[in-house]
């Protein structure tokens, strides 16, 4: 009798173990993972003074625009921007506009047709964001305007530089949860001289693990 009840007890324990394990296994298959990996891989560009290379410069008015785009980035001393995915020609051209203390003050007028008039020429207003007007014309004839949307503006005319970055691009399929990520290796950085005096590649590899400065731009008289 005792032996029988012992066997029943043992069988019950086995059955319960099977059942618990089975239920646990079913349960774990109902839960999904999430992507915890940062996939943003911008190029970080910082400005420095040419005269004091350890000193980070913060230009008064600085805007960046990828040539061929109409996206304008406002920045102070450092900014992060995407590189292009053009597989045929892996290089990016940026227009860099910045003002400084010596930039000449100019008068601009916004006429009734919302066009900016500067030096007797009219420029269509492409974008008004947060009460600030931005305008980039053709690359050969770039202008940027910054000011409140009123009739008359007085501000400093910026200088323009061009920054060209050549790179190799790799596409990484990271995981089922995260999908794809781009990584880059900077090959060359060139510039058209105006306010930029020099360019240095600080870190060549651009990936989601690196938060370092990749490019250092040295400015004259900052």
């Amino acid at each position: 009798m005792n032996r029988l009840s012992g066997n029943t007890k043992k069988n019950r324990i086995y059955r319960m173990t099977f059942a618990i394990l089975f239920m646990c296994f079913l349960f774990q298959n109902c839960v999904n993972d999430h992507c915890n990996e940062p996939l943003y891989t911008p190029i970080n560009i910082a400005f420095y003074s040419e005269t004091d290379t350890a000193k980070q410069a913060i230009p008064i008015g600085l805007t960046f625009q990828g040539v061929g785009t109409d996206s304008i980035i406002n920045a102070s001393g450092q900014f992060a921007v995407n590189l292009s995915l053009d597989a045929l020609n892996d290089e990016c051209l940026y227009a860099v506009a910045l003002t400084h203390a010596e930039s000449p003050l100019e008068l601009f007028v916004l006429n009734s047709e919302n066009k900016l008039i500067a030096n007797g020429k009219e420029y269509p207003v492409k974008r008004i964001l947060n009460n600030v007007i931005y305008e980039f014309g053709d690359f050969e004839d770039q202008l940027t305007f910054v000011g409140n949307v009123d009739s008359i503006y007085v501000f400093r005319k910026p200088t323009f530089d061009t920054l060209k970055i050549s790179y190799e691009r790799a596409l990484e399929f990271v995981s089922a949860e995260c999908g794809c990520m781009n990584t880059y290796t900077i090959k060359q950085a060139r510039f058209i001289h105006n306010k930029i005096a020099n360019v240095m590649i600080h870190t060549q590899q651009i990936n989601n693990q690196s938060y370092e400065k990749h490019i250092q731009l040295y400015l004259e008289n900052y």
Partner: protein
Amino acid sequence: MRSIFSYTWRTISFLLLLGMVSTAEAKGKNEGSPEKTFYGMYVDIDILHPILHLFNSNRMGVNADIQIDLWHKLYPTILVGYDWFDASSEYSYPIPATNNQYKINGTYFKIGALYNIWKKNYEKQNSPIAYLGINYGISPGFNYTIENYPINNSYWDNGNDRSFSADGHTTAQWGEIVGGVKTPIVKNFCLGFEVMFKTLLHIKDQNSDNNIIHQSYAPGFGDKEAGKWGFRYTISYFFHL
């Protein structure tokens, strides 16, 4: 969230198994000495994965193995299986994806050896066993298909994001420590369950045309990140010599 639940239950499961195995070992008294070397062999079929497929249509798998009974102590094992995963719905990055697909399928093999730590009844051809062992697993040339995963280029493309697609095959290798029990139920038919602790040795990343592809799954191993523990519930037939 997943890690808390999965690790809790896995720990509980493993402790239960360890408890059963140690109880078995403590009670185990061998009766006599082996009468022969080769007692027979088990043919095991996994019943868990086909049942799981009924609850989760994104994965399907079958596997079967042969275990040779030497002296009722040592069980050299060879296993063959096939797994199919559809991980398309797991994509959770904020960039929206349309009709994205990530599917993996392929055959895998395991070879290993188990040692019976339960009492050995040498007079019987087929008796309950509890075992510990190791396996080496390989999935050679399993297939993957990746379609329509978004690549963010919105700054340059004015919002027209691009997508990435690729397919091919690659190889995964892993090692396992296994523990399990198996007991006869009717004549030569047995039921068993097995716990595996798996360590991924290598999944070959595909690297071509500046595209690097990491796999999240491997047939036989499962989820690369969360697949360290595995289970099998088997129904077996013991063939006498």
